[in-house]
């Protein structure tokens, strides 16, 4: 069905391809909203885009090396820290937004001042890692616009071994528990992140993506 007066049609969104991710699924999920999408895998000016998506899958070290190699790290820092435009990190894309990841001992972007850890390094009880499958996301303090128009405490699809810990963060986060409570949904200013895969989470994921696009529209106006 054609969306009449589609509010998202003028949005220009960049999807970063580190050549180790599931670009196709993310691309399809966003293309349903008929936004203008560009996949980026080399040095490109980002300033004209309304938002950037950092997708999931892959290993942290490989991803950061790739971004530095092609010269995108600086452009992304400029986009996020100076232009303050919306960015959504999914799974690994969310983890590399943090200060540092134990994974391969790499440095992340540091936009979120917290360190990513391996589940096994924190949880000593018997638990199977990676954390794979569907789990609850509950809202901590405050409100989460990304979860609006959904059932209460929806389930999303996860596949990861590393997690972003809660530390002393307050509000605007979604929490999931797997041996340890961790941040599964993050929202601060122009920075958005999900530890789960909205593009693989049926209608809940589709609503979340639409909510994000509403935020992008809002930021643009």
């Amino acid at each position, binding site marked *: 069905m054609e969306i009449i007066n589609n509010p998202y049609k003028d949005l220009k969104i960049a999807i970063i391809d580190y*050549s*180790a*991710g*599931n*670009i*196709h*699924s993310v691309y*399809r*999920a966003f293309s349903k909203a008929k936004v203008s999408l560009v996949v980026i895998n080399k040095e490109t000016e980002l300033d004209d885009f309304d938002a950037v998506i950092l997708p999931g*899958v*892959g*290993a942290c070290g*490989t991803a950061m090396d790739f971004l530095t190699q092609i010269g995108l790290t600086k452009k992304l820092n400029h986009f996020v820290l100076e232009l303050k435009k919306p960015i959504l990190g999914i799974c*690994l894309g969310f983890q590399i937004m943090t200060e540092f990841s134990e994974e391969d001992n790499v440095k992340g972007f540091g936009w979120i001042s917290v360190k990513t850890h391996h589940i096994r390094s924190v949880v000593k009880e*018997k*638990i*199977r*890692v*990676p*954390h*794979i*499958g*569907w*789990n*609850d996301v509950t809202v901590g303090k405050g409100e989460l616009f990304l979860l609006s128009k959904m*059932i209460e*405490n*929806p*389930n999303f*699809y996860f*596949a*990861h*071994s590393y997690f972003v810990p809660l530390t002393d963060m307050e509000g605007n986060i979604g929490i999931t*528990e*797997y041996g340890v409570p961790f941040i599964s949904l993050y929202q601060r200013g122009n920075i958005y992140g999900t530890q789960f*895969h909205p*593009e*693989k*989470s*049926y*209608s*809940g*994921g*589709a609503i979340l993506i639409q909510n994000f696009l509403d935020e992008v529209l809002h930021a643009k106006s």
Partner: protein
Amino acid sequence: MLKVRVIPVLLLRHWGLEKTIQFTDPKYIGCPINAARVFNQHNVDELILLDIVATHENRPPEIEIVKQISAETSMPFTVGGGIRNIEVIRELLKAGADKVVINTAVVDVPGLLPEAAKQFGRQCIVVSIDVRQVDSNKYEVFTHGGKKATGIEPIELAKRAESEGAGEIFITSIDRDGTLTGYDLNLISQITNVVQIPVIACGGAGSVKDLADAYYDAGSSAVACGAFFLFYGKRRTVLITYPSEEQLLQYFKPEHIRKRDPKKPIDTELARL
């Protein structure tokens, strides 16, 4: 709390969907894309697609199938069959698969697992182990679609796969495949006891109780089935089904069952394939 995953398994021969009994006697079922569409309508927890002749024909799975399924669904899915190198894994993930299944190459291609885990993360690497019972309490791993005996014990291979970078073990009893007589709980328990990565049970499920037994008694994190979700009635008429939340609740605790999307009607014509 993490939920149980109930996973339909689709066996492919190129673009055709088939189902076997004890890895032989393949019966043509229909079009895998249509089957994936119906399972997507059913809101399944995950889908696994395995090309059962890919290794024999020395080729990877059809990448176009992966692209089409990724385009038409919004569920997690896993693809396997004939995967022997990093580039094929990269292509499959890029096309929209969330995870890949490696079976024969775990035994045949040294170094593939560690490299795959390093490049893509272990969460997307599933190692599949096909097993026959060769003696009263002795199991043996078979590769090449169940045709080649390896002399390796499943426990040994599962431990090795875990140490080399597997993110999950997909354990299949060849003897139970397609029989609907229940999982080999002894085999599954042996594997779940020796690894600390999730284990997917496969081979023989014929009822929701069988699924719950593998989850609660044998400790598997996920339960996979073929025939149970593809055939209907004693005559084994082709009809795609999937247990409802209510049916699962008869044997599973509520906190272990995923909250699905609000109910939408299933295309029953399409479900007959």
